[in-house]
């Protein structure tokens, strides 16, 4: 099937939107993207489940607007994009390859690679077009003007939006559950940390290449595995009982979290965006030292003074250096060598990182607040408010229920149980059970899954305004 589709595309006219949509469907039909009957992926980084029911009607012709990035269409596109990008990276399970051998071969197969490359530019346009409209750079930029602008940013950056997410966690009815939701969203990126940027360390572009490589060396822990940044984050996850294997929680990633991860792959994979990346790395390294301090404080407040925070404290320290290195050793010499005209691209990358950060924080804050609403308010004795929730440990979903997979709610929707029961999964370890006669409203812009019992019949209707 894949091979015949590749041949058909090779013979088709370029830009055939309908054909590209069929390519996306065919790509998603590959076994490694098959729906799963459980909410997690167990030690198999090749499996990237998608929902078959999402694809009829899925159309990538018209790009997503910025207010559609927290939609189900965005979730589908971003899931596929990351699976395409990450085929350039090496993944292996922690244990036992024999029974995953077929998945291993399939994920890295030529057919999937070819088809992925055919649909990638279309998906990138679909996902990232709105970002181009969000930023405009004009005027006669010089390195002095850029340094002044950067210094103003550095001195005034307070990570207000990140702090709002931290506050949403620490002031939640169940701060621990909210913190786990947060850590899971970070896992998609942090467990493969620096892989996207490492795409810019190969080739030959003189001293700049070696300067960027120094940053990557830090990220990789100088070859000392226990201090590799992704290893530090594995320890954060393990300390909270979470699985450190990349993409175990694939089905729980929000589209807005995928989006951030995909952005770095997008600008690093296409080397025409190299200078855009130089701006992006400067912003992220400068901002991350501040946000990581906030994350450290949040972890300590939620989990106590023994909370595992080495990942975050390491970045508070090293990113002060990385910020300076990005400016002094990458951007200044690059402008000196190639002229002021590259500054428009550097500024664009710098600004785009701020925007994707906003998108990430908004999506996550909404999810955390919604999931937390299922927990009983400490001030409330209302039994109705306390009835639906049961907190489950990972892997303890009722086996007699059918896992329908996670999706985004695009409009405020009411789910009403006629008979039987369903579990509404509002996030990791946030499961609310609803029985006959009960209903629940799922707002637009949140990720959820339903697990109906075998005898469950439920109705779905748009919520009345």
């Amino acid at each position, binding site marked *: 099937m894949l091979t015949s589709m590749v041949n058909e595309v090779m013979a088709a006219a370029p830009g055939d939107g309908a054909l590209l949509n069929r390519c996306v469907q065919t790509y998603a039909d590959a076994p490694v993207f098959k729906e799963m009957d459980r909410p997690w992926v167990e030690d198999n980084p090749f499996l990237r489940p998608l929902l078959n029911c999402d694809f009829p009607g899925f159309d990538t012709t018209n790009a997503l607007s910025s207010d559609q990035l927290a939609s189900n269409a965005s979730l589908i596109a971003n899931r596929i994009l990351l699976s395409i990008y990450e085929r350039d990276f090496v993944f292996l399970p922690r244990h036992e390859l024999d029974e995953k051998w077929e998945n291993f071969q399939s994920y890295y197969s030529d057919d999937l690679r070819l088809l992925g490359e055919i649909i990638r530019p279309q998906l990138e346009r679909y996902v990232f077009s709105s970002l181009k409209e969000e*930023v405009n750079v*004009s005027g006669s930029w*010089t390195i002095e003007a850029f340094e002044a602008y950067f210094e103003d940013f550095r001195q005034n950056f307070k990570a207000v939006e990140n702090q709002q997410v931290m506050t949403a966690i620490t002031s939640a009815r169940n701060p621990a559950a909210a913190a786990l939701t947060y850590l899971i969203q970070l896992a998609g990126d942090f467990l493969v940390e620096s892989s996207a940027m490492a795409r810019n360390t190969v080739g030959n572009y003189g001293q700049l290449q070696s300067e960027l490589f120094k940053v990557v060396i830090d990220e990789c822990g100088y070859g000392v595995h226990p201090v590799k940044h992704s290893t530090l984050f594995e320890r954060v996850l393990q300390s909270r009982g979470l699985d450190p294997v990349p993409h175990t929680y694939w089905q729980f990633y929000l589209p807005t979290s995928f989006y951030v991860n995909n952005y770095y792959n997008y600008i690093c994979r296409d080397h025409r965006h190299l200078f855009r990346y130089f701006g992006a790395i400067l912003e992220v390294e400068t901002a991350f030292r501040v946000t990581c301090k906030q994350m450290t404080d949040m972890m300590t407040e939620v989990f106590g003074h023994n909370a595992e925070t080495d990942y975050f404290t390491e970045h508070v320290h090293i990113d002060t250096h990385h910020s300076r290195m990005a400016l002094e050793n990458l951007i200044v010499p690059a402008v000196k060598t190639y002229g002021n005209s590259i500054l428009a*691209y550097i500024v664009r990358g710098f*600004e785009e990182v701020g*925007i994707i950060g906003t998108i990430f924080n908004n999506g996550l804050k909404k999810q955390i607040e919604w999931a937390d609403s299922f927990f009983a308010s400490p001030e409330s004795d209302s039994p109705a408010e306390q009835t639906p929730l049961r907190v489950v440990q990972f892997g303890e979903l009722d086996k007699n229920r059918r896992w329908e997979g996670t999706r985004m709610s695009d409009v405020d929707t009411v789910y009403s149980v006629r008979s039987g029961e369903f579990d509404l999964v509002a996030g990791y370890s946030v499961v609310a059970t609803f029985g006959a006669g009960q209903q629940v409203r799922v707002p637009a812009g949140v990720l959820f899954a339903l697990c109906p019992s075998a005898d469950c019949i439920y109705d779905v209707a748009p919520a009345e305004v």
Partner: protein
Amino acid sequence: MRIVHLDSGENFVEIGEQRFLVLRAEGKGCHTISAKCPHRGGPLHLGTVEDDGHFLKCPWHKTRLSIPHLLRNSLPTIRTRGRVSIVVTDAKVDETPHACFRKTLLDAKAALAGVNGTP
């Protein structure tokens, strides 16, 4: 050098004795140019746009100025979503910028009509 951040809608900046106008039009980017006519310092923000956005006429001496040429000397400017940031390159550190909205400002859409979008 000073960094000036404008709120949504603000289109005029005064800093020391300098005045700047901020031209925004959908698909045409956002540009900051000096409001001082290079001829005799006339108030360009009160000028009129001619020839489909290719020229700006100063109200004092009717000097016709090429808009693409004016934009080539525009200030480093960033529009990110609704926010606009400008690097005023020759401002003194102790000069406080004042930004505002001026209804009487020349029509940005007309002024940028002949301009291509920026990268």
